C-alpha cells in the first residue's frame, strides 16, 4: 500500500513538473516512468489516481479562485454542467495516466529489447 501511495504521488508531481515545459500528453511520460520504476500491485490505478488527482485538484483550484464563470460557460458549450466538466477533465487525465503507467509496468526489465 505504501508503495502504491509513493507511486501515485511521484506520478502526480512529475507530471505537474513536466507540464510546465511540455504539452498535456507529457503526463503520460510521468505515468510510464512511475509504472516502470515504482511498480506496485496496481499499476493502472497508480497512473489513474496520480494524473486524475493532479488534474482534479488543478481544475478545482482554478474553478474556486476564478473571477468569472468561464467553466460554467464552457460546460454550457459542451451541453453539460460544471460538475460534470470537472469530472470529465479528471477522467480524461486519469485514463491517459492509467494506461500509460500500466504500459510502463509491462516493460520487462533486464531483457533484450524487442523480446516481448
Amino acid at each position, binding site marked *: 500500500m505504501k508503495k502504491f501511495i509513493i507511486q501515485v504521488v511521484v506520478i502526480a508531481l512529475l507530471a505537474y513538473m513536466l*507540464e510546465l515545459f511540455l504539452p498535456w500528453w507529457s503526463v503520460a511520460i510521468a505515468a510510464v516512468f512511475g509504472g516502470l520504476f515504482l511498480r506496485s500491485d496496481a499499476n493502472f490505478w497508480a497512473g489513474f489516481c496520480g494524473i486524475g488527482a493532479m488534474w482534479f485538484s488543478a481544475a478545482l483550484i*482554478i474553478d474556486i479562485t476564478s*473571477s468569472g464563470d468561464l*467553466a460554467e460557460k464552457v460546460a454550457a458549450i459542451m451541453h453539460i454542467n460544471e460538475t460534470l466538466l470537472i469530472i*470529465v*477533465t479528471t477522467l*480524461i487525465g486519469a485514463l491517459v495516466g492509467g494506461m500509460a503507467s500500466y*504500459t510502463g509496468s*509491462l516493460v520487462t526489465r533486464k531483457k533484450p529489447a524487442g523480446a*516481448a
Partner: protein
Amino acid sequence: MKFFLSLFGTLALILFLDRSWTVGYTRIPPLGKFLDPLSGFWQNCEPNNHIGPEDLRVNGLKQKVIVQYDSLLIPHIFATDEEDLYIAQGFVTAQHRLWQMEFQVMAAAGRLSSILGPGPDNAFVEYDRRQRRLGLPFAAQNAAEMMIQDPVQKRMLERYTDGINRYIASLRYKDLPLEYKLMDYEPEPWSVLKCGLLLKSMAQTLNMGDKDVEMTNALKLFGKEMVDLLYPDPDCDIDPIVNNPGGWNFGAENLATDSREIAKGLVGINAAPKSNPDLGSNNWAVSGSRTATGAPILCNDPHLDTSLPSIWFAVHLNGPGVNVMGVSIPGSPGVIIGFNDSIAWGVTNAQRDLVDWYKITYQDVNRDRYLLDGEWKPAEKKVEEIVVRGGATVYDTVIYTHWGPVPYDRNFKGEEGLSDYAFRWIAHDPSKEATTFYKLNRAKNFNDFMEALDHYASPAQNFVFASVSGDIAIRIQGKFPVRRKDEGKFVLDGSKSSNGWNAFIPFEQNIMEKNPPRGFVSSANQYPVDSTYPYYITATEYEAYRNRRINNVLRRLNGITVTDMMRLQNDNYNLHAAETLPFLLSQLAIDTAALRDEGPEGIALIEAYRKLATWDYFNDKDSEGASYFQAWWDDFYPRLWDEMLEHPFSLARPSEYNTVKLLKENRISMFYDIQSTETRESLRDLVRTSFATSVARIQKWKEDRELSRVRWADYKDTYVRHLARIEALGYHVQHGGHANAVNASGRIHGPSWRMIVSLEKTGIKAYGVYPGGQSGNPGSYHYSDMLDAWSNGRYYRLVFPKRPEEMQPHMFYETDLNPREKEN
C-alpha cells in the same frame, strides 16, 4: 504482446484526445489538450483581481515603455519614442484582443472557411466567395499600397504590426485566447494589409448601402411620378446636419447635364448585402456659450453591433508630441474617437450613395472582352483561392472591369439576378485614412482638425469637433462623386465610361459648419444639408427621428452640464411613435363596449388599447406601451407594403417617415388593398387587422414566457452576442431604447461607445462607457464589466494623466515593456 497492445492503446488514446473532431457541423475541441487544467481552457479562467506581468521583454523597443492599467483595464501607455509607442499599442492590444482582431480580418478577407470549415450548406464558403467577389481584399490591397507610400503612416502601421507579431511570437498553447482552443487553430502573423482589411470591413459595414436594383424596378413598374412620391429625395429635410442657406459660395464642379443611361429591363432579386439601416450614430458639440462651465462639451455614440469581445478598445497613448485617449479599433493604430489635451472629436456615419452597379456586355460566352465606348476591352480575370478546412480548396474566378469586380455572374448567385453587373464602390479606391487619425490624435486646434480631415476618403463620416480654445465644428468628410439629379439611384449601362464617376466634390467644398449661431452642431445620420448646397445628394435612407429629438433638446437646454448630456444620450423618447401612434389610434376607433362582450380576446384588445393610449412614447425598460406599439407597427408596416414585399422582383419599402407622412396626407390609398385577399381593404381594415394580430402575438408571447406583463426590455431582449455567435459567451441585457430614439439600442446593435468630453481650460473631463469590457477573454472579469453601467445609463470618469506619476491613485497594475538588452 500485452505490452505492445497497451502501448498502442495509450498512444491511440493520446492521439485521439490531441486533435479536434467534427460531428455534423460542430467542431469538438481536442479533449485532452482543451481540458488539461495546466494548459487547456482552464488557464483562461482568470483569478479574482488578476494582474498581468510586471515586466516583459519586447524585441525592437528602443526604450522602456510604461503601461499602467486603471480599474477598467484601460492601458495608459507612456513611451519616450514614437515608434516604441506604436509597438506598445500593437503589443498591448494583442494581449487583450488577439483572437477578435484576427477573426474580424479573416471574415473581411473571405477566409472564414479556412478556420470554420465549409459550414452548413457551404455557408462559410459562400460567405468567403462573396467577400472576395465584392473586392474586399482588392480594396485592402489598394489601401495598404497607398498607406506605405507615406513615411509617417508606414512607420506607424509597421511598428504597430511589429508589436502584434512580438506578442504572437511569445505565445504558447497555454496562453492562447479561448476561441483558438475551442476552434482548434492558431494565430498567424499580422501585416499592414490586415490593418487595411479592418478599415475596409468598417467601410463595408457603413458605406455599402444601396437600393439601385429596387429603385430601378420601382421606376419600371410604377413610373417616375410614383417613385418620386414613394422615395422622395431628400426623404426628409426637416432638420439637416448643416443649415446654412445661401452660405455655399464657391464654384461648384459641373458635369454635362444629360443624365446617365439606366440599364434596360427589370432586375431580379438583389443578392447584394446591405449595410444595416439601423446602424447609425449620434454626435454633437455644444458651444461654451450654452454650457454651465463655459467650456464646450462634445458627445458621441456610434451605433454598431453590440458584440463581444467589444468592437472598441479604450486606450491612452502618451509619447513625444502626443497625449491622446479614446477608443481604438483592435487591429488599427491610434485612437479613432477621442480627445487630447486640446481637442475632442467624434464620428457618425454620413449617409451617401457610394455604390453603383453597371450592366456589362460581354463579347461572347468566354467573357474575355466587354464593351466600353464602342471597343471590346479585355476583362481581367482573377482567380481567388479559398482554403477550406477539412475540404478541398475552392477556386473562384472573378472578372474585373473598368468599373470594378463583377460579383454576381453565372458562377455565383447569377440565377438570383444582378448578373453581370459590375460593382463600383468608393472603398475600392486607394486612400490613406491612417494619416487622418495620426494627425487628429495630435491636433491642437480647428486648423489642425481641418488639415487632418483632408486626408480622409472612406468610409464617409460626419466629424464633430470641439476645442479647449472654444471652437465647435462639424464636417462631413469623404470622397463623394459629383452627381447629376437622380444619379446613383438606378443601375446603369456599363458600356459608356461617361456613365461613371468622372468628378469628385473638392474636399474644401464638402459640407461643414463652424461655431454656428445656434450654439451647437449635431448629426444623427440625417439628410446632410439645406437645399442651397449646389451638389445633388442621395442615399439609401436618411435618419428621420433621432436628429430632431437631439436638436429639440439642445435648443431648449441652457447652462448645459455633463449630466444633461448623459441624460440626452440615454434618452428613450420615440419620436416615430409620437408621430404615428395618435394617427393609428384614431383610425382604430375602438368600441370598448362591444369588445367587452367578446371574452378574453376582447379584453386583451381593450387592455392593449388602454396601454397604448396612455403611453408617454418613452421606450423605457418597464414600458408596456412601447412593446404594444412595436408589435403593432411591425405588423402594420409590411402589411401596408405587401405590394413591395410579395412582388417577384426586388422592391424597397418607402421609409417609415415617408410612410406615415403619406398616410396622413392620404396619398397612397392604392396600396391599402391586401394582395392575398379577395376583398378590397381600406386603411381602417389594415389598421384593425394589424392591431388584432399584434395583440394576439403579444398574448402568445406572454403565455410562452408565463409573464403577466410585456415589459419593453423583455420584449426587445437586448443581446450582446459573441463575435463567433457562441451562445454561452453572450449576454442578454435589460436595456431600454429604440433605433428611433437617441438611445438607439435595438436587439443586437446600439450605442457601442458613449463618450462625453467637457473641454475645460483647467483640464479635460471625459466620461465613457461601452457594452462590454476591455478584455477579450471570456474568463476575465473585464470581459463584460462595463455592461451593467452601460445598460443603466451610467458612465465612468476616464482617467487622463499627463505623466505616469499622476496615475498612482487610479492604478490597478503596471507592466513595463523593456527592450532586449542585446538583439541576437
